[in-house]
Each structure stands twice: as structure tokens, then as C-alpha cells.
């Protein structure tokens, strides 16, 4: 099934102007609470190429999470230029950002962020539902993904009936559902024991080898070592 053709206008092959999936130029983010202004990001330049595996590291409070939110289009920068696969993101409205999150970004969170009342299958199905994919295609796609993350036999379990590692694999399947441009993982092993964490890392590596662009935020040096490239953030700047 060619999901690329199904979901996107510009397919995987047409990367941005300089071949980057993510291209950030002088990105700033200022939180203005009225009394105090907090400069979380002070001019970030970042480029992630198609098929890269990049780790973003840095101490807590360095602006990692803020950067993650901006890359994931969950938040908008105060200043600077952000292109996702060549397309200008700054200045888009809420609905357009929602669509970008739906089609082009796959989130993997530290605390999984699965909906507890519905089955693993339905969790993975959700982005397809928002993307307006037909019922038949949704079924096929979810089944395919659950096999990919080795959870075909647990498809109809609720998240509470799964182990942490299994939950994170469901979340990864969900992130892959719409065949995004990039997988954005925020401390994906932070809530897992060592062996589950290793499993997840291997899964990421497999995905990367199959051509998925990966961006992982972590403060785990072991994880950062696995990445092709490490970007360190300190005090809102790329170090």
C-alpha cells in the first residue's frame, strides 16, 4: 500500500530546498508572562536531513522540550524561520498546524500518552481517523503497523493491560500510522526499565534503517551514542 501517495501532496522524494526535512534558522522562543520574559530559545539553527538519526541532548532547562514542541508544531516560535520539508510553518493557523501534526509528524512521548479507555488498535487508528482515512484502509494499516511493532497478538488489549515497553511500541505504531516525514521522540525510554528501553532503541534503529528520519530528545548518553549525530542544546542555543 502506498501511503505516501495516499496522504501527501509532496512525497518522500521531494525534500526541501537544501534536502532537509527540518530546517530551522535563528529560531527564538520567548515566554512572556507579563512580569518576566523568559528566553527559552535564543536563536537556534538546526537542519535534519532525510533519513538522518539525530539526538538532541542537553541538561534540563536547556530548552530541549521547547524545541521539541516547536519542531512538532505543537507551538509556534516567537521569531525565526522554520521550514518543514521546504514548507514554511511559522504563521500557520491552528487547523493547519493540526493537519501538519497529523500527516507529517509522528510523536513518541516519554509517558506514552495513549488513551487508556480504548484498545491498542483504536489508539493506533486514531490519527488515521483524524486524517479521514476510510475504515477499510484504517484496518489494514493498523494491522500492518501492529505486526511491525510485534504486537499483533495484543492488538485488542487496552493500554493498562500492557507493559511499559509494549505501550511504547503501541505509541510508536501510532506515530508511524500516517507515514510521517519524521519521528519525533521525547525521552522515549525515560519511563522504561533497561531491557524494555533497549528493545525500543533497537526498534528505532530498525525503523531508521528502513529509511525513517528520526529525531530523539534525550539526556541518556547511551541513547545519544546510537544516533548518527548529536546536537547539544545549552541555555537556548545550539552548543
Amino acid at each position: 500500500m502506498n501511503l505516501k501517495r495516499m496522504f501527501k501532496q509532496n512525497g518522500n522524494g521531494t525534500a526541501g530546498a537544501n534536502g532537509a526535512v527540518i530546517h530551522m534558522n535563528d529560531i527564538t522562543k520567548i515566554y512572556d508572562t507579563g512580569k518576566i520574559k523568559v528566553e527559552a530559545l535564543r536563536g537556534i539553527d538546526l537542519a535534519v536531513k532525510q533519513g538522518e538519526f539525530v539526538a538532541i541532548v542537553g541538561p534540563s532547562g536547556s530548552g530541549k522540550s521547547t524545541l521539541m514542541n516547536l519542531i512538532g508544531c505543537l507551538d509556534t516560535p516567537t521569531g525565526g524561520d522554520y521550514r518543514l520539508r521546504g514548507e514554511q510553518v511559522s504563521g500557520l493557523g491552528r487547523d493547519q498546524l493540526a493537519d501538519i501534526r497529523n500527516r507529517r509528524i509522528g510523536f513518541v512521548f516519554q509517558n506514552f500518552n495513549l488513551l487508556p479507555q480504548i484498545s491498542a488498535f483504536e489508539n493506533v487508528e486514531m490519527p488515521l481517523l483524524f486524517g479521514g482515512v476510510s475504515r477499510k484502509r484504517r484496518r489494514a494499516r493498523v494491522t500492518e503497523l501492529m505486526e511491525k511493532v510485534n504486537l499483533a497478538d495484543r492488538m485488542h488489549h487496552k493500554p493498562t493491560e500492557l507493559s511499559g515497553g509494549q505501550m511504547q511500541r503501541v505509541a510508536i505504531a501510532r506515530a508511524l500510522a500516517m507515514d510521517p516525514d519524521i519521528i519525533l521522540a521525547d525521552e522515549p525510554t525515560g519511563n522504561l526499565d533497561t531491557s524494555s528501553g533497549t528493545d525500543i532503541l533497537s526498534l528505532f534503529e530498525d525503523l531508521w534503517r528502513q529509511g525513517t528520519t528520526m529525531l530523539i530528545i534525550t539526556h541518556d548518553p547511551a541513547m545519544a551514542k546510537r544516533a548518527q549525530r548529536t546536537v547539544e542544546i545549552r541555555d537556548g542555543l545550539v552548543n
Partner: protein
Amino acid sequence: MPILPSFLRQAFRDLSSQKLRTTLTLFGLVWGTAAVSLLLAFGNGLHTQLVKNTAGLGNGIVITWPSLTSIPFEGLGKGRRILLTERDVDLLKKRSTLIDAISAEFSETLRLQNGSQVRAAGVSGVDVPFGEMRNLIAREGGRFLNPLDVMNRRRVLFLGNELAENVFGEEEPVGRTVKLNGSPFLVVGVMKKKIQESNYSGPDRRRAYIPETTFRALTGQEYVDQFIYTARSVDQTEAATAEVASILAAKHRFDPGDEEALQVWDTTGMMQFMNNFMLIFNLFLGTVGSLTLVVGGIGVSNIMNVVVEERTREIGIKMAIGARGRSVLGGIMLETLIITAAGGLLGIGITAGICALVPAAGLTDFVGDPKLTSGVAAVTIGLLGAIGMLAGWFPARAAARLDPVVAMKS
């Protein structure tokens, strides 16, 4: 739309996780809906009952009694008696353009004799249209007076139901012969029981009716006691009354504006008053019911606020993976409408039940038959829909405006 079923599932899940609150809210809505629709239904029933009671006297009739003039006119002093005969009524029939039906009425108390039993009975001599105008409907097996009876001065008699019972007891009166002032009369019909709240010479159930021609021949009475008529439509009644006055004034030489010469009882005026009264009454009932419903709506809004608050994280996650504000808003609105519709249906069901119970319990005479008309249902559903939308709107909008980053952290 493939999204609907999963939204529905979500809705039921949310509502069942809030059982107590949902039950209480539902109760408020059921109560509100039942209150609005019941009050309106009872208002309707009462109106129908009042109309029915008034209709006992007649359907939009005007009763006119010729009397004494009170204004001098063309050299004639006041206090002159206006006397009308059958010919005047015929003149009105011929000249008037606004009158639909008219009948003279001669009346007197006559001796009614059945075998050895003798009693005094109020008897009216009337024309055929009188029966329909005054709602004198024959019960099965009988009939009212017909044109041949009047033309041929037949000695036939139509009896009020109470009088018939007094005279004949359990026996069937139709086909029997009684004597009026010594002359034999054939009973052709008995009035079907009716509710009559007002009258001018005793309730119809205690009276007897014979053809006016026969009456005049029997009693020698020349002048009509009163005549009744209906206008072509109820709105034209006032104009018809003025027309009648002018035709008769021209002939009998009295001032057409003399309110004493012809004394008029326009029963449509009462009807109009009653309609106005009922309108105000219904408005009052509707307002009371609506306020109850508004209170129910506040309950719904409250429960939806709680739902949104409890689901903030979930909404955040959904937004992160691509739910648009609109779909979040739609989900909450749908849930609100589901509760509202459920409450509304139950409430309307209760009303329908009560509407069915009242006649069965024999309470019709006291409160009328409450009717759940399509109008009542439409008003209730419209009100309920508006309240549901409003109740859902604010929580739903709050949900749609959540910041996904903040929402996911809650």
C-alpha cells in the same frame, strides 16, 4: 462519515463514567421537558375544553332580542317597543350579505302530556338552521327538525335529553307521541348529551323544540322572542351585527346606533376573550416550564465542563496527533446533544403517558384532555435543542481552544 461511530462510543463512555452526575442532569432535563410539554399540553386541553363548553350554546352565534328604543328617532319618542315577526327574519335572510345562517325563536312554557303524566316544559319554535347553530345534535336513532317539518307545519318534537328522561324514563322516546297543549306531537329526536355552560332560557337539555310554523299555529304567537344568527366567518360577526341593526332600523324606524332597541349577545366576543386569556395563560405556563428547562441546561453545561476538565489530557493527546479544534468541539457538542435528546425523549414520553392517563382516569371534565399536539412537541423540542446547543457550546469551545502542550501535561 466514518468518524461518527467512534465519537458516539466516546460519548457513551464519558457519560457512563459520570453515572451519578449524568443521572442527576438527566433528571433535571426530563423534569424540565416534562414540565414544559405538560404545561403546554394541559393549556391546550383546557382551551379545547373551554371552547367545547362554550360551544354548548352555539358555534360563534349572535343572539338578538328586540326590545325598547332608547333614543328618539325621526319624531318618534323613546321607549317604543320594537316588535319583529317571521317576515323580519325573512327580510334579513334576503338582504344581509354577511349572515351565514339565521333562525327566529319563539318560546313559551307549554303543557307537555304523556299519558296521564303532565308537566310544564319550555318549548321553542325554531327553523332548521337553529339545530346546527346551537349544537342541538340528535343522538342515534333520531333527527333534528327538517325543512319539510317547517314547511308543512308538522307536529313533530325534538326533546332535550334531560326532559326526555323525565318524561319517558328508560323508554326510547323516538317514535312515541306526546301532547303539547292538547295537540299530539311525534317525537323525532332526542338531543345528544352535551356540556353547556351558558344559556338564555334554561339549558337545552330541559327544553323541547318544534317547527316555528307549528309553534305559531299552536300558540297564535306572532312576534319572535329572539333570533340567532352566525356570520360567514367569526371575524365578520361585528360587521354582520351592524348590518342586521341597519336593515331592521330602516324598516322599523329606529336609530341604528340604538343599543337598547336590539339587545345583542355576541358569543364570539367571549371566545375572543377566552383566546386571549389562553394565550397569556400558555405564555405563563411556557415561561415557567422553560425556566425549569434552563436550570436543566445549566446542569448539562456543568457536566460537560467536568467532562472537558477530566478529558483535558486526552484532548491534548488527540490534538497532538492531529485532531482539529472543530472535531474536538463536535465531539463535545455531540455528547451534549445526546444527553439533552435522551432527557427530552424521556420527558416527552412522560407527558404522552400522562396525556393518555387523564381521559382514562375520567378527569376530563375537571382539567380537559391534555393534548401533546405537534405544536407542543415542536416548541418543546426547539427549546430543548437550543438549550442543549447553548449548554454544550461553552465547554466545547473551551475544549477546542486548549493548548495541546499544556493540556497533555495535566
